[in-house]
């Protein structure tokens, strides 16, 4: 029997307080995610239960109990407090998926500070933009990644503490601190910050069409949405061994790679090594993983390596599979059913801003391959007419995916950008403040994706409603790429779009014009690719660069990405009357 039981019955009778009931949480108890995921599990007698099974590159591996989580997160909280970090300060966590990432995340929250996890593959420019935006006061990193911080620290006056948590302390430079929590005295007691439901917890950066990335701010109250969806959608039960493949630099890695599973007291696995199909299958086999939450890009890469490879591993422990990050194509759903003994991946739809799963396929419910599934109980979802922005009644008609505000994990603001936050709500008054917007059930929060709904209530994803590129399940903003491209010595103008890709859904393609004195060549293309890879990230690196004499522009001089995208996708370009003739 799955945790959700009957979807239809849950839809009839639903209250978010069911999450509190599942966690046996009583009013008046401490509502702090750091403590809920560690101290509270120990307090109920599960301190010796395994919380984290970790494997790194080579033969490195380690296991940690919930008591270890409690003590090591206390260690980080105490150390940061001693360094003058205070509640509300933003603390960036910039490291690979090493155990200290997980301990420090909970430690930052226990202190009442705001955890700002960033993907460790980000280059120095991507890092700088996000630290400057957040006014980050401290960064926790490793010897491997601190060199990127060194390049930018002089331009970040608010960044007061650079703390290296792994590596050789003798290699530190002036102004850097070293803190190895596992080799420091155990901190048995820490006075956890008494957060309220609305105390900020996590700041995740996400990309948009225009401007630099925006910080989506979440609060401690999000735990109810994350815990309940983990229970009902991922179906985690007491004896499960769970693997979420996402990196906590992205929202899936925190909502479902830390908060949801550990709030429930589940054992989870982390693999911190490069992707190869055989390594992943071996990891599942060796750790007897039962519930696996992955991404379409990874699933398609596994498909590419063939069925025969799967059969060389014993994967009989698996009992439930789910997927997130981009639409899961029907072929991948059918393939998983064939090679994983009838188990099909359950697609889940949500985003950084929603904080928890919004539309999904549930355990025990018929999966329609290629469909996003149905809204989570308690979530009012619709597709809005593209012109009128009113909910559509017509089945199969494409509109904007939108949600009625008010669920617990909803983001509370874009960091320091109230106007941008307001612009995400249809029906908002001109001066509405974030608290009014997020609690007004008469508004619609617009996700930026398009879909249709069939006669049975299943949602079907169509695509983005803007120019944001979804590559490998990660959103990349074209503006950020274009800004970096024109910093290259050879490039005069640039436009970035997503082009179709069999494995990653989309990859970045750039169109550039060159400055006088530069000629198109394969060598220059490779040079530009590596330039972006190092400055921004491998995800943002164009996988193809097209040289042009000029780029399509409006008469006011704005580059028209949609025209380039339409050509690339073989679609109608729409109204081009505003295009300049030049």
């Amino acid at each position, binding site marked *: 029997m799955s945790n959700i039981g009957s979807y239809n019955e849950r839809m009839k009778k639903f209250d978010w307080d069911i999450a509190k009931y599942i966690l046996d949480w009583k009013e008046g108890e401490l509502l702090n995610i750091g403590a809920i995921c560690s101290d509270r599990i120990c307090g109920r007698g599960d301190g010796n239960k395994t919380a984290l099974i970790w494997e790194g*590159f*080579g033969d490195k591996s380690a296991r940690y109990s919930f008591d270890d989580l409690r003590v090591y997160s206390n260690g980080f909280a105490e150390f940061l407090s001693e360094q003058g970090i205070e509640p509300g300060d933003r603390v960036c966590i910039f490291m*690979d998926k090493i155990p200290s990432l997980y301990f420090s995340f909970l430690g930052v929250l226990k202190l009442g500070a705001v955890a700002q996890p960033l993907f460790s*593959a980000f280059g120095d420019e991507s890092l700088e933009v996000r630290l400057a935006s957040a006014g980050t006061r401290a960064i926790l990193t490793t010897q491997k990644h601190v*060199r990127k911080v060194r390049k930018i620290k002089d331009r970040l006056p608010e960044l007061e503490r650079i703390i290296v948590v792994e590596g050789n302390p003798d290699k530190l430079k002036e102004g850097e601190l070293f803190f190895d929590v596992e080799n420091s005295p155990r901190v048995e007691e820490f006075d956890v910050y008494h957060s309220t439901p609305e105390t900020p917890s996590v700041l995740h950066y996400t990309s948009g069409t225009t401007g630099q990335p925006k910080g989506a701010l979440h609060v401690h109250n999000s735990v109810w949405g994350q815990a309940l969806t983990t229970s009902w959608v991922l179906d985690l039960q007491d004896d499960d061994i769970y693997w979420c493949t996402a990196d906590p630099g992205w929202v899936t890695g925190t909502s479902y790679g830390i908060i949801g599973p550990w709030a429930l007291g589940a054992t989870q696995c982390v693999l*911190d*090594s*490069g*992707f*190869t*199909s*055989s*390594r992943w299958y071996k990891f599942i086999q060796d750790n007897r993983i039962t519930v696996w939450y992955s991404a379409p890009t990874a699933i398609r*890469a596994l498909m*590419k*390596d063939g069925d025969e490879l799967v059969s060389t591993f014993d994967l009989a422990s698996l009992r439930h599979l789910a997927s997130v990050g981009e639409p899961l194509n029907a072929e991948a759903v059918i393939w998983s059913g064939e090679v994983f003994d009838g188990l099909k991946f359950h697609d889940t739809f949500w985003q950084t801003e929603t904080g928890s799963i919004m539309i999904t396929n549930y355990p025990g419910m018929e999966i329609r391959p290629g469909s996003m599934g149905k809204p989570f109980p308690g979530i009012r979802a619709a597709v809005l007419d593209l012109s009128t922005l009113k909910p559509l009644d017509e089945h199969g008609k494409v509109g904007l995916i939108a949600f009625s505000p008010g669920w617990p994990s909803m983001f509370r603001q874009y960091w320091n950008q109230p106007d941008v936050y307001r612009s995400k709500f249809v029906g908002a008054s001109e001066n509405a403040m974030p608290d009014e917007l997020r609690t007004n059930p008469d508004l619609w929060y617009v996700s930026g994706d398009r879909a249709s709904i069939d006669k049975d209530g299943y949602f079907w994803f169509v695509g983005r409603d803007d120019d944001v590129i979804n*590559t*490998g399940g990660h959103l990349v903003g074209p503006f950020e790429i274009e800004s970096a491209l024109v910093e290259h010595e050879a490039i005069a103008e640039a436009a970035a779009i997503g082009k179709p890709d*069999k494995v990653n859904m989309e*990859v970045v393609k750039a169109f550039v014009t060159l400055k006088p004195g530069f000629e198109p060549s*394969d*060598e220059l*293309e*490779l040079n530009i*690719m*590596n330039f972006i*890879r190092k400055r921004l990230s*491998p*995800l943002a*690196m164009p*996988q193809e660069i097209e040289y042009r004499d000029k780029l399509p522009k409006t008469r006011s001089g704005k580059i028209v990405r949609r025209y380039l995208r339409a050509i690339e996708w073989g679609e109608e370009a729409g109204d081009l009357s505003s295009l300049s003739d030049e």
Partner: protein
Amino acid sequence: MDEMKKVILEYIVDEYLDEDDEDEVSFNTPLISSGIVDSFSMVSLKRFLETKYSIKLSDEEATPEAFDTVNSICRLVDKHLG
């Protein structure tokens, strides 16, 4: 083949490791499975090989396993050079 190994190794050290990186990379050092080169960055490594050796590598050939060491990369390139 030895010259090719040196050229590819030098490119990887220059492009994927930082100046003060202490990691010693040899012809047999795992690149993909160790995380030195991630799956997205494989594309630029593939492009380098194609440009440098005037070959075309198909997506089916350019697997994480085939790109995992300098030795395995050289075997793949050598196959195309005949």
